[in-house]
């Protein structure tokens, strides 16, 4: 039987070295593969990890568009047809009653109490188009108006053409604020409004549309007393002449007056005339179809 040969010392060292070299070689190959893959990876990453494109260009505002303007014009046209019909209907009723509408703008003031006293003495009614800050300044007289059955209406906040017409939403914003103030003082809400200096020429179609969306009724007038201009008793005679012209035309007078000292001073003379003629003074309400100056191409933004 052959005896098993054993490795001598040199043999053992040789085998160990071979073993180590083998391990190192295998690891080296593996590392090479990793390097190659890493390089491939670099290329792949550049090709597939793309940044995302995205445009932030804004859309044009809808209100600035042709479509928006045509919608506004079309809506306003239809509203105007309706308004004229209803106003004509109301006018017939008013004519039968010999009605007349007295309106006082820009109050309340320090003479409003006196004005109310005069109207009460003559058993006559009127509608007051009031400015927000003035309502805050004279809340008691406004409460008195409400309690005694006078017409309460809105005239904005600033009475400044460059403020109230500064952009398309400005008239609406002023009237909403004015409405809020009046409601806080009296507990009542009104949709009856008059723009400072009237709706022509600065109340544009867009502004009218916005006000209509909130059910505001835009009131102008057909008799201008010119009390603000004449500033003396001559406004009374002028007003009487205008009233008679309206009567001849079969139209119910809506008179523009102002809550101011000189007007109040000579008011009894005007009221006496109205009494003699048997006029019935009525107030404007949310249900009254308004007398509004139509644009008919005359409206333009304030410069």
């Amino acid at each position, binding site marked *: 039987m052959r005896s098993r040969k054993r490795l001598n010392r040199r043999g053992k060292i040789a085998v*160990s070295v071979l073993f180590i070299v083998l391990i190192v070689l295998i690891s080296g190959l*593996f590392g090479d593969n990793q390097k190659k893959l890493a390089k491939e*990876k670099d290329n792949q990453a550049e090709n597939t990890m793309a940044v995302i494109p995205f445009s932030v260009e804004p859309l044009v505002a809808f209100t600035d*568009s042709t479509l*928006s303007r045509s919608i506004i014009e079309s809506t306003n046209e239809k509203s105007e047809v309706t308004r004229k019909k209803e106003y004509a209907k109301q006018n017939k009723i008013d004519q039968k009653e010999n009605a007349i509408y007295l309106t006082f703008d820009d109050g309340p003031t320090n003479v409003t109490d006196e004005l109310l006293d005069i109207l009460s003495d003559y058993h006559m009614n009127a509608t007051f188009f009031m400015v927000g800050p003035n309502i805050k300044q004279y809340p008691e007289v406004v409460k008195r108006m409400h309690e005694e059955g006078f017409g309460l209406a809105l005239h904005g906040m600033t009475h400044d053409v460059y403020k109230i017409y500064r952009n398309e939403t400005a008239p609406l914003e002023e009237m909403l604020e004015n409405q809020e103030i009046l409601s806080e003082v009296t507990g009542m809400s009104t949709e009856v409004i008059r723009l400072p200096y009237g709706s022509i020429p600065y109340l544009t179609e867009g502004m009218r549309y*916005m006000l209509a969306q909130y059910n505001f009724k835009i009131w102008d007038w057909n008799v201008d007393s010119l009390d603000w201009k004449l500033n003396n008793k001559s406004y009374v005679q002028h007003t009487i002449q205008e009233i008679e012209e309206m009567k001849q035309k079969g139209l119910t007078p809506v008179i523009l007056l102002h809550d101011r000292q000189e007007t109040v001073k000579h008011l009894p003379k005007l009221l006496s005339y109205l009494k003699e003629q048997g006029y019935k003074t009525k107030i404007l309400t949310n249900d009254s179809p308004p007398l509004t100056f139509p644009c008919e191409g005359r409206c333009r933004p304030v410069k």
Partner: protein
Amino acid sequence: MIAFSFILNGCQSSSKQVTKIEKVMDKATELEKEFSTTQLELLETRENARLLYYDLINLTISDKDLLHQKIEDGKTYVTKQQQLLDQAEESFNKAYNTSSKIEKSIKKMKDDAQKNEATKLLTVMKERKILMDTFFKDYHETLQLQKTFYQQLEDEKIDIGSLNQQILEINMRTQEMGKIIEEFNQYTRQYIEAEQDFYRASESDEPNYDA
């Protein structure tokens, strides 16, 4: 000799994790390709929708037939964007869910340098995910606004103020989405760098046979 074998075995273990991470990232990258492609389609559709909006608002209310057609086209673009957005969301989430699996491998890594680089990768991926989730949410809301806009026009429930407000909101969200994408793209660039750093770290503990 045995001890030396064990040391070499430790190295092999880190290499094993690197290999695993590689495979996962390969797959995730492939899925992100789909996401990128869909985003390009979304960009194109969005641009077409924008041009259509300009055509629409240049009509007048009396152009009834043309108006109706544009409204229908507008609604179609909204639907198309919705579909593409859902697709993009799905492929991005798949890519992210795949790539987040590297977290397990990172925990098993013994080499600190490799582990740090891999952790950076993971962190950047998470940031991208947060941003993209916000982007998708905003985009969905924007599409809802567009849908409402066209529906109101179609129903002739025309409130100029309301229609305009929707456009203003869409514009506001567009700006926000733009910022998100800008940030996302920065993270994408960081991701590319982090990936390269990771592979460099993976190479550095191998014997240098080029010397």
